[in-house]
């Protein structure tokens, strides 16, 4: 039986704690007597018979007819799936999406359905490369559908292929992919890594137009999203659920398939990552030393290649299908079972180790804007009830924060960093002053639609993702980051953790309390 997550009070015998630092790690000594480390629960066991479980889920859906009953010859079937932003790191083959989709396609074939389109629901994310599609769906599906033009990627900027489904009482217009909108059935194949994903968010963002997304991807909504992982206290999810209701009432029939993964994220060479420091044996210590020392000497490009090449051993822990709301409720139970850790009260400081990857840079460099997004958008939001750090407290992140960008994936991020961030770091101001220019830029649109670039407006969304954190924290410090780059983000650079604590005294006094969120392995702190 895997052990649950827990909170370690740091005392004088506590060894230094592992922090991510981009493409490397460091061990940091946290002050005794006033620090605590929040450890995630250990990975849950995987399903025994995954393919069997998938079939059972499709045949016994929640609040919905079994899938074969929904399929009939001559129908228009659209299968949409989560894009490359999930899971992190990428799964070892076969990917959950491939397994689920093969089961769905078998049933469709058996029912004589021949008008099937498979659409990557990437919203405003970048188009996937061929090797990524093959990895997620398998060669068989790719080779069968791609050459015929029936496996393709959603285009939120294609005016001819979008359709309006309806409008919410609040005036939010639901506009989604036309093929999906005109289908007799949409089957959505999802991977739910964190509580933020899934539910109505799958279709209403993944297949939506820019216009539709801008209703909830804005600073005001995200400042009132307390947190992204707590759907009932998230303004973003409330908007998404309103749009979902429009879809349910006026749109095509939806058959939602959600899967969850355990947190067994890194293969054996990185075994020490998943262990608690005081339980490290000689081998763990040796691998840690060997890994960090050799990474120190590895050219950064090679280090990136190594890390982005990692395939996680994570396995499916649940699969459920049927009506979206009913399915998502069960999914969340599974997620919280894996990720929830009860924590008592807030502290003055929150420390976060930032890894080499976030949902927006699979197979690419994690640029400074994404460092902010990962720290303040994702990790800071890993809470229910209240944040781990008190309002006005300090957030300390460890990351090299180099000024590196991938020009193919993140062209608008480069300009955002140079042009927008040198003007303002305030989400509301940048939204007013700059967002439209980037969102409607012809060149970005061209690269999004024909290349592999994130949409022009995406860096704004990445920044808004951290809006709640920005507004909540009194000071944000990055340890080990490139100083001019960190300053451009509006944060304070520090060279060591001790310096960072020293800098933080301005805000939180001489003996602040500290929480460290121990990632990787995902966890959601349930702060009372």
């Amino acid at each position, binding site marked *: 039986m895997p052990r649950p997550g827990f909170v370690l009070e740091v005392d004088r015998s506590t060894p230094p704690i592992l922090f991510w630092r981009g493409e490397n790690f460091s061990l940091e000594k946290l002050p005794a007597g006033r620090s605590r480390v929040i450890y995630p629960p250990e990975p849950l066991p995987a399903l025994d018979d995954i393919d069997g479980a998938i079939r059972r889920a499709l045949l016994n859906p929640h609040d919905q007819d079994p899938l074969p009953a929904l399929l009939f010859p001559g129908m228009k079937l659209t299968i949409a799936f989560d894009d490359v932003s999930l899971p992190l790191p990428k799964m070892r083959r076969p990917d959950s999406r491939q397994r689920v989709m093969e089961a769905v396609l078998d049933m469709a074939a058996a029912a004589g359905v021949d008008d099937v389109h498979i659409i990557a629901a990437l919203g405003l994310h970048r188009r996937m490369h*061929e090797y990524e599609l093959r990895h997620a769906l398998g060669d068989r599906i790719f*080779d069968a559908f791609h*050459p015929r033009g029936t496996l393709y990627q959603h285009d939120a900027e294609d005016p001819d292929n979008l359709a309006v489904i309806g409008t919410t009482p609040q005036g939010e217009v639901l506009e989604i992919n036309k093929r999906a909108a005109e289908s007799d059935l949409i089957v959505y194949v999802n991977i739910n890594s964190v509580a933020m994903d899934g539910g109505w968010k799958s279709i209403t963002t993944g297949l939506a137009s820019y216009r539709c997304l801008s209703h909830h991807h804005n600073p005001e909504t995200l400042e009132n999203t307390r947190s992204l992982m707590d759907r009932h206290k998230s303004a973003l999810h409330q908007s998404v659920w309103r749009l979902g209701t429009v879809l349910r009432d006026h749109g095509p029939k939806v058959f939602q398939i959600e899967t969850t993964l355990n947190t067994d994220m890194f293969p054996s060479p990185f075994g020490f990552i998943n262990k608690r420091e005081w339980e490290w044996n000689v081998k763990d210590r040796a691998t840690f030393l060997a890994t960090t020392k050799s990474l120190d000497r590895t050219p950064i*490009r090679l280090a990136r290649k190594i890390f982005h090449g990692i395939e996680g051993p994570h396995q499916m822990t649940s699969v459920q299908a049927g009506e979206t709301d009913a399915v998502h409720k069960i999914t969340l139970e599974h997620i919280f079972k894996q990720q929830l850790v009860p924590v008592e009260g807030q502290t003055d400081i929150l420390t976060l180790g930032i890894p080499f990857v976030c949902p927006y840079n699979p197979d*690419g*460099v994690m*640029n400074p804007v994404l460092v902010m997004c990962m720290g303040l958008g994702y990790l800071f939001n890993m809470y229910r009830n209240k944040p781990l750090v008190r309002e006005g407290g300090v957030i300390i992140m460890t990351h090299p924060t*180099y*000024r*590196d*960008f*991938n*020009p*193919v994936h*993140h*062209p608008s991020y*480069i*300009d955002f960093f*140079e*042009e927008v961030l040198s003007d303002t770091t305030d989400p509301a101001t940048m939204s007013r002053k700059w967002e439209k*220019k980037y969102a409607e*830029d*012809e*060149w970005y*649109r*061209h*690269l999004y639609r*024909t*290349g*592999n*670039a994130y949409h022009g407006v995406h860096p704004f969304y990445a920044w808004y993702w951290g809006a709640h954190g920005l507004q909540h924290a009194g000071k944000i410090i990055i340890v080990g980051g490139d100083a001019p780059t960190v300053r451009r983000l509006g944060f304070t650079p520090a060279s060591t953790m001790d310096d960072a604590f020293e800098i933080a005294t301005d805000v939180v006094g001489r003996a602040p309390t500290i929480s460290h969120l121990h990632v990787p392995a995902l966890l959601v702190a349930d702060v009372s």
Partner: protein
Amino acid sequence: MIPEQLAGKRIAITGSTGFVGTALVERLLRSAPGCDLVLLVRPSRRHSASERVRREIFKNNAFDRLKRELEAVGTETFDAMVARRVHAIGGDVSTDGLGLNTDDQAVFASCDIVIHSAAAVAFDSPLDSAIEINLLGPSRVAQTLQALGVRPHLVAVSTCYVAGNRRGSAPEQLVSAGPFDLGLDWRKEVAAGRRLRSDTETASRDPHRLRQFRVEAHKELGAAGAPALAGKTESLRERWVSDELVEAGRARAASVGWPDAYAFTKALGEQALTEVKGDVPVSIVRPSIIESALAEPFPGWIRGFRMAEPVIISYARGLLKQFPGVPEGTIDVIPVDLVVAAIIAVAAVGPEHAPPITQVASGGVNPMKYGLLVERVRDFFTAHPLYDPEGQPIVVPEWQFPARGKVQLQLKRAKAVAERTERVLQALPLRGKQATWAAKLEEYKHDINRAYEYVQLYGLYTECEAIYQVDHLLSVWDTLDAADQAAFNFDPRSVHWPTYVSEIHLPSVVQHSRAKITPGRNRNDRSDRLRRNVLSPDRHVAAFDLENTLISSNVVESYSWLATRRLNVPERIRYVLRTLAEAPGLSSMDRKDRGDFLRYFYRRYEGASVTQIDEDSKELLTQLIVTKSFPAGIRRVREHRALGHRTILITGALDFVVAGLKPLFDEIVAAEMTIRPDGTYSGELSKVPPTGETRAQVLAEYCVAEGLSIEQSIAYADSTSDLPLLEAVGFPVVVNPETRLAAVARNRGWLVEHWSKESGARRPLLPIGELLSDRERKKVFS
């Protein structure tokens, strides 16, 4: 009273755009409100005489005081006063009859006083132009007055240094009247000077020499195209002629005992004037070394960068460690306002009372010792150091008072080192920032060269031990009443040298030199200013080159990418080996002529399927072009579009390679291949590829067709072969230049941008397509 004496008088001034001339105009307008001025100014190629007067005289800060005073009184605006009292006429003292038209002759003839202060003062004027202006100028003025039948008082400004290299007292008399007269005939010197000009012009056209100029032009510009090379060659020839004549002047002056051609021609000019003046009453005023103002119009006022300033700044910059001279020697400096007051006083007292020659100098009555100057300069720059571009203070060296030879040797050595380094740098294939270092080195070399010239020339002045007598000056001074003495101070005894040097002159010199006087890194205001100019909404078209301007890739890479895309591994290896073997030949061909290279290279596309290429080109955009693009460059294109400028891409790359860039540009001009009936490319270009001077033509035609102005256009390019394009537009921008272009850009003050590839991009070892799956690879296109 001087103002009363000048009231109602009309005064003509030559050389009013110069240092003394501007001060003279200002002083007369301000301190002698009753007089009118006629300014004889040579029209320039661009501006008429009156336009030059407006731009070059009245915009000077010398007039700030007068403008303020008039505003305070409020009866007449400055412009109205100028319109009432100042008449500009077009003329040239190096032409017989001063080149006046009939109307202007009448105006000139109506003058009561003519002050001739036009001169070629530069130490590097060619001998013949020094002769035309300095030697013949004064006589021409006198002869013109005679021809017009008028006899106004002619006050000619000369120099104390006409006395030549001599020790001891130099009295206020003609050199020819003194004991050291060599009996030179000025007419012979004029004839010899003119002959020398025509001989040198002939010599410069010697085929052997012309070949040299061409080789040098090619070295400097590279493959810039025939018109650009021809232009450069001709300007090198002209420079050679001018250098020869400068050297000839220096040699001739030295041979007969003058420090330089300026003093020499001035001395003969006095002689000539005395001989030809006839009954025109003449007074000669001889200042010594004129420096910034003591008090009028304000302390420290100076115009232009003159004798001592470049030397002082070179020392403060650490460039000049030494300057020859003896500490107890006298350096004869006189503030400009004293000179101007003396000229006005001489003019005011009239031809009957004015001495024939008046020297305005300090050496005789209030000498400034060279040692004192050096000490003050050193103290000043120790207290207020200049800063190098890195923001570090420059420490000035201790002065050793070396002999001239030693200093020259030092500089020669520094120059040799710089030249060697430069040769090495030019041989390296540098680009961008590194190439700019090479350009900076060239500037450093230029600075050393200049310092060398100064030492060579001004060394003579500091070593000159003549003491200029000022008896005539003081006798005029004594006739003035107290009010005039207060308003028109020209008493050399009134200058307190330590105060003048430390508190008036040096701060002004530093300010004018635009040297860096604050610590911290350079913010590079100049580039910012140029960039603002380029990104002004007034511009019309922005033209871009592609390779190394917007992307760091070339036609060989895009071909390789497309050619290998559907090959399997062994085929790829063979392809790479074959291409590597060909590389040296291709690159040398490219250096010789881009157009020929492209035609030759593009034949490789023969037989390629148009459909396949079109499909593959889509991937080429992200995999090669965007990956290797300069994001700052792409951003700049879009900034231009946002400002409403047309954007045009002019490239020798093939149209399908750049097709993906269409959303960035209003117009893409690229090479195009003809297509055969079977749907394959022929490998032959359908028209001349846009390279070299063709690009300038393409842009010019585009501008004409669209009704836009090429003057208001911007061109971005990276190589000297684009010089015709860069020169054709009003706002050239050089991107990541190679060494030669960096030097050109620096000389001409063009904006230089350093754009780089994004560091987070993939960097494949070879520009070949990603390996495709078997099925994709074998896809058949028809």
